[in-house]
């Protein structure tokens, strides 16, 4: 039983280990989407300036050394500062970039919910409220429409 369990565990490790290594392996194409060209002010993926080319060479060098994606990004931050990251870091003042939209969404959702509740309490759309008005002309318009149609009646 133990030997069998060990064999299964070994097989699982053999299957999962390469996948884990693959996930860790950095790729220039992926990193280019996540970092900026600091001088161009655009994603590195979109930049073609000489500075961007140097940044790519720098990243390629780190990948060749076997650095992970996180290590490459750390090295870029050490070279250029936090602004090289396309997404701001989740700490300090930069954290507000993530929190403000969440708070704004929650406030907007709460305001919408309160508005809907008040509208329903006021009778808008409720079952006891007045139903939708009947479609089509009424009164004087209806008579005029009938008269007009009668003129075209063959």
């Amino acid at each position: 039983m133990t030997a069998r369990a060990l064999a299964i565990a070994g097989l699982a490790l053999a299957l999962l280990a390469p996948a884990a290594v693959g996930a860790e392996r950095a790729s220039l194409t992926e990193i280019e989407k996540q970092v900026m060209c600091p001088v161009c002010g655009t994603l590195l993926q979109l930049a073609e300036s000489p500075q961007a080319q140097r940044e790519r060479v720098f990243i390629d060098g780190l990948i060749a050394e076997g650095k992970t994606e996180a290590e490459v990004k750390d090295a870029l931050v050490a070279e250029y500062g936090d602004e090289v990251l396309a997404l701001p870091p989740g700490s300090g003042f930069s954290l507000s970039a993530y929190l403000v939209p969440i708070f704004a969404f929650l406030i907007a959702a709460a305001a919408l919910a309160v508005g809907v509740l008040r509208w329903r309490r006021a009778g808008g759309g409720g079952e006891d409220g007045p139903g939708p008005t009947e479609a089509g002309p009424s009164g004087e318009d209806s008579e005029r429409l009938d008269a007009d149609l009668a003129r075209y009646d063959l």
Partner: protein
Amino acid sequence: MSLRSVIAVIGVLAVVGLLVFGLASKGSSGLAVGDPVPTAPLPKLDGEGSQSLADYRGRWVLVNFWASWCPPCRAEAPALEEFQRRLRGPGFTVLGIDSRDLSDDGRAFVRRYGLSYPQLRDADGGVSHDYGTTGLPESYLVDPRGKVRLHSVGQVDEEYLREEVEPLLKGGKG
């Protein structure tokens, strides 16, 4: 004032505050002649410690913003080095600031052109932003009191250094 009005006012103030903050943090009018230069410390390009413009108070300093990937910076480097060799002393130095550049590339640039003047590193371009630079290279002649006396956008050459910068240095104190 009703609760609804208070919430609306707070919302408007928050939006206006964010706009003002955004403009204040992004906007930069740039240094003009007579303005004091920023004195935030910067790491040395060789990695050994840091320096500030305040450390050069009492001397004329030609602050030159450059980067290794910038062709005009390469073109002006020999003229700056020649000027430094000719006029360096207790009263004057050129001071290079490598901006938004890879540190290894910056150090290779210094070796390649044999630059003997001190070099600092502005990794994220924060100090360039404080000066209000619009590109590279840019140079500022700072007087002994720490105020801008000349500002040059783009590549400097021997003629500019001889005819614009040198007379001020020889004219005595700022």
